[in-house]
């Protein structure tokens, strides 16, 4: 091969490799991105059944139900229009409590119960997951304080 041919081969090879990586990345992206839904969207049937997504809202007071001494629990996530029941087994984050914003990762069962495999940690008392703040604001008309200094996890 002449140097010129070699260079062309090299460039073509690199382009092919990079485009292959791009296609694979797009695929991985399409299959693994999780969308966010609030309880009203879930009630309207917009959320997928049996595919993982993020559910967010407030923990409705008086709905956190736990069998004493067991890791199994359930609670109701609300946006003050619609409710979705969530079941979960495991450790919940420190700032999980009634009347606080929460984001749960999991799947919606056919019976309309959301089976969570992860309850999202909040890092700060003042922090409200932004999607939750917006979802509630739209439904409730109320103003949810989002403190910009605390909106990011305190890492630098």
């Amino acid at each position: 091969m002449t140097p010129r041919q070699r260079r062309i081969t090299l460039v073509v090879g690199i382009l092919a490799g990079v485009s292959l990586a791009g296609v694979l990345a797009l695929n991985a992206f399409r299959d693994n991105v999780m969308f966010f839904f609030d309880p009203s969207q879930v009630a309207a049937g917009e959320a997928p059944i049996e595919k993982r997504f993020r559910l967010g809202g407030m923990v409705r007071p008086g709905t956190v139900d736990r069998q004493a001494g067991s890791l199994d629990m359930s609670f109701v996530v609300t946006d003050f229009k619609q409710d979705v029941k969530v079941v979960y087994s495991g450790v919940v984050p420190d700032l999980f409590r009634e009347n606080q914003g929460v984001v749960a990762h999991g799947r919606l069962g056919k019976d309309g119960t959301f089976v969570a495999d992860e309850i999202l940690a909040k890092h700060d008392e003042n922090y409200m997951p932004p999607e939750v703040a917006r979802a509630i604001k739209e439904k409730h008309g109320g103003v949810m304080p989002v403190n910009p200094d605390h909106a990011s996890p305190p890492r630098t």
Partner: protein
Amino acid sequence: MIAEIGHYALILALLASLAQAFFGLIGAARNHDSWVATVRPAVTVQFLMTSLALAVLVVAFVQNDFSVEYVAANSNSALPVGYRIAAVWGAHEGSLLLWAWILVAWTFAVAALSKRLPAGFAARVLGVLGLVSLGFHAFTLFTSNPFLRLDPAAPDGRDLNPLLQDPALAAHPPMLYAGYVGFAVAFAFACAAMLEGRLDQTWARWTRPWTTVAWAFLSIGIALGSWWAYYELGWGGYWFWDPVENASFMPWLVGTALIHSLAVTEKRGLFKSWTLLLAILAFSLSLLGTFLVRSGVLVSVHSFAADPTRGMFILAFLVIVIGGALTLYAWRAPLLRSEAGFEFTARESFLLFNNILLVVAAGAVFAGTMAPLISDALGLGTLSVGRQYFDPVFLLPTLPLLALAAVGIHSSWKKGRLGERRKAILLTLVVGVLVAVVLVLGAWEGAMLLTPIGFALGIWLMLSALVDPIDRWRRGLSLSRGVVGMAIAHAALGLFTISITAVESYTRERDLALAVGETGQVGEFEYRLRDLRAVEGPNYDALRGEIVVYENGREIGLLHPEKRNYWVQRQVMTEAGIDMQLTRDIFAALGEDLGAGRWSVRAQVRPLINYVWLAAFLMALGGVIATTDRRYRQESAG
């Protein structure tokens, strides 16, 4: 009074940076020797003034001056003195000041060590650095001033976020910033070369040590942050592909590409314009990272709008720096052609592919990090991208990279022949594969397809990196520090691969519900909650558990996880109990009161996890050793 001194000092620093930028850039362009001679004094003034401003803020924190708003918001009289100092960079305003100070400190070091460089070139480098610090001082003064007064003064402060009250996290931002900002030096060298329209091998030799040291700092900063997240957040992993982590990882990936590309430019005078582009990119990503994290944009596009002045300033600054540099690049880079050619299996080829793979990996991380922001901004729905995306797209370019490194480290410049090195490459590969197979057969449970691949690649790379230096050392041949540093850093990458493979494959974890005296099973381990009692710290009270861990009935660890309640911020915090052992970490974090006397406990046993961070430190060490090589001391040091 003292806060005002800091405020004035910062204004003076801004003026000095203006003078430094103006006299540096214009003086060099017009060949005014007297202007150029003003640059170094301007740097000194800027350094003294920024140091004074930072010192004033530290004093305000140490003295509990709650008439300063920033101190009142981020400290408390009950906070130990060490954390009061760390609280200086505990939030937005102070960390910007720290950023600016580190930038000025780097600038000062460049000014002091660049006396042998051509005067015009050094003036341009310092001028570009002056422009960057001008932007930062202006940003701090106009949108994020830490010296603003609170009237009337607060009786006490609102305390530092308890999550930040930790030694690793106190050291994490300075290290990380030292890395971020260090890339500003490479950026300034690149801009100066473009302005001069001249880039030769000497240029690369000047730039290389600065870039490598910055890269080493960044490595340590990222490792400290990851270590902190591991034991402080109580979730037990070392990396979460969190946007904030990604923000620091992208400049690291591009910076790694840059130090390799610089090697080619130094040794062979090739890849010139590519090196320039990487230098611009590494610093741009550093800026982007700082600002994404600091402005809160990453978590929500809406908090961006919550403080439009900060957001707009940030955007404008990013556009000016990145846009300006890229314009300069488009205009000047075509002047800097490389002439020489090389054979397909020469070292240049390996480093070319190294660069492509690293940049592709950075691009994949970038896409995943920015997609939620873009989707949200365009109203396409709120989405999140997690490890299900990042893991595969990151491994795709990096696995071949490891194999490439194991072979490439034996390649020679220009000539394609691996010659007698071929034996060493094959031998280390065989050893790696054999050990990996034995390991996986011996520890079957939890092994995946990637487990033997990861072990084999890691061991291969580690041995391959060390075999030649060890051989030379045994034969009493001379070894340059550059070679030793390179061997250590690449062997550390092998160690990193091995430990991550072990952690990902063989971690045992489970959430348990335990009452005092009860035992729960986690894989082959048993966790017994022996005691649970109240204890008190300086600014918190806590519930402290005592957990004994058994393996096959034998006691192997004793853990003391805590659930802390910080008084001032009324925040509940999980302090994980971790028993660090030579080959594994035994981990427990207390969850919550489940009723009936039981507590939820997050139990994990992770093999080799500490070697992940050790490897990161060794990589940094390798970089530092390489920069102490004699040829840099002769050529670039003052």
